[in-house]
């Protein structure tokens, strides 16, 4: 019995690796002809000059934007396939400082009000710093990007229990309809049409994969008066699942 | 380019002061380190004052007094840990007999040394743009 369980585990690990390698190779190799399409579109635009037919120029702009989406999707696939292979350094991070760095890197902070609350006795911990950074950044980025109001309030609450850090990122934005809650973690799923709000839709998928890799958890709950609450449990001691 | 060390091997006070000034004005994130001669440079590369991380970029005035640039570059190229360092040679000498020797050691560039403060800023600005446009390996020795 034990032997067959072990060989099942091995087979599972091998399959997983094969899958990730496949996703990586495919995404990587598709990039070359995709880049060519993007470049050639630019050359033609260039050669046509600014006085070309408006419809033609618009169509080229559309073409390039769709190629841009392809690029984003491929990059997301590449990132997803490499989650447990790259940036796996363990080093000491200071949680408040890390949060601040994430906030600093955000685009479009106009009209965003951050409300930060730390309830920590251990501000420092040795962990996969780049991965934690990525997860927090993705959630903050989502909170800002999908916000629908003039003034965007984003709340960051960090506390800890004996085993984990509890990081809660919430906002007073539109929230997510109950029937869609399960879908938001699927890759490339976006609540709005990508024509309305351009987003690849991979941030949550990648974040969840990272969190599961470290043995943590992420959960969505709707806020009381519209808005979203994402709660991350990040273990203080990381045991990497293979 | 944060956290990178750049080693300048030169003993010309004017150039060094202006280099520091240029780095600060341009806002270059890397740390500029100095050595006045071969011995000091070597101690920072393999000796008691070994830089950590090792610099990936070096600037050497091969004709400054007390600096035998060709010797130093040859030693660097012969050393397993150091041989991949990008070396930029700056020289103020016309008709430099060391020039061909330096080029034969696969330096990244042989450049004429600027003197005036404004020229030095412009010099490092161009170099900084170039350094920011190239990739470095992620190994930190």
């Amino acid at each position, binding site marked *: 019995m034990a032997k067959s369980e072990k060989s099942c585990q091995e087979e599972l690990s091998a399959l997983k690796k094969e899958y990730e390698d496949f996703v990586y190779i495919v995404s990587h190799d598709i*990039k*070359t002809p*995709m*880049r*060519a399409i*993007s*470049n*050639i579109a*630019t*050359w033609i635009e*260039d050669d046509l000059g600014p006085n070309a037919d408006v419809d033609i120029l618009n169509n080229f702009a559309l073409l390039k934007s769709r190629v841009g989406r392809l*690029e984003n999707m491929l990059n997301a696939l590449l990132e997803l396939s490499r989650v447990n292979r790259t940036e796996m350094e363990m080093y000491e991070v200071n949680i408040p400082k890390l949060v601040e760095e994430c906030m600093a890197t955000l685009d479009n902070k106009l009209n965003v009000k951050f409300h930060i609350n730390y309830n920590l006795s251990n501000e420092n911990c040795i962990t996969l710093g780049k991965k934690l950074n990525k997860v927090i950044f993705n959630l903050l980025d989502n909170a800002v990007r999908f916000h629908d109001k003039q003034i965007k309030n984003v709340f960051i609450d960090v506390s800890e229990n004996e085993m984990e850090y509890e990081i809660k990122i919430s906002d007073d934005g539109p929230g997510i309809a109950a029937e869609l809650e399960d879908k938001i973690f699927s890759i490339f799923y976006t609540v709005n049409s990508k024509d309305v709000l351009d987003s690849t839709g991979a941030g949550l998928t990648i974040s969840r994969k990272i969190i599961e890799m470290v043995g943590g958890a992420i959960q969505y709950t709707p806020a009381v008066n519209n808005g979203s609450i994402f709660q991350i449990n990040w273990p203080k001691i990381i045991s990497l699942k293979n | 380019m944060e956290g990178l060390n750049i080693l300048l091997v030169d003993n010309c006070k004017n150039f060094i002061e202006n280099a520091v000034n240029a780095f600060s004005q341009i806002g270059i994130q890397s740390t500029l380190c100095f050595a006045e001669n071969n011995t000091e440079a070597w101690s920072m590369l393999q000796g008691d004052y070994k830089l950590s991380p090792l610099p990936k970029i070096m600037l050497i005035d091969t004709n400054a007094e007390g600096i035998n640039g060709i010797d130093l570059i040859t030693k660097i*190229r012969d050393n397993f840990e150091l*041989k*991949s360092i*990008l070396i930029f040679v700056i020289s103020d000498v016309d008709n430099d007999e060391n*020039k061909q020797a330096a*080029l*034969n*050691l*696969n330096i*990244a*560039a*042989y*450049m*004429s040394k600027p003197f005036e403060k404004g020229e030095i800023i412009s*010099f490092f600005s*161009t*170099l900084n*743009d*170039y350094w920011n*446009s*190239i*990739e*470095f*390996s*992620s*190994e930190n020795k």
Partner: protein
Amino acid sequence: MIQKLVNILLVEDDEVDVMNVKRAFTKNNIKNELFVAGNGVEALGMLRTSIVPLPRIIILDINMPKMNGIEFLKVLREDENLKNISVFVMTTSNEDSDKINAYNLNVAGYILKPLSFEKFITSVATLKNFWSLCEM
């Protein structure tokens, strides 16, 4: 000034990438003569028979058929007559192993080809400014 004198050998197998370089050179007003080899073997031939006259520099892709960039670089550095040529790698490979190998073979720079042509024009502009400081 160096831009007027030096000859550039582009070692690149992808015709779209060759066109990118030619167009980016034109956009940046780079007047140096550009020679093109489709792989390492062809490049060595062009260098050894002086089809590319001195002084010369090389822009090198890594992923090519027959002889890839790193293999080419090794042969180049072992050839007495060719070993001191300045090489600038221009590739889509973000692999650390390629970067390490390239710098160990003393390239003067390792440039990642950006996805957009506009960004590539800027990369080439930076390269041109750098070259204006270099003396051969």
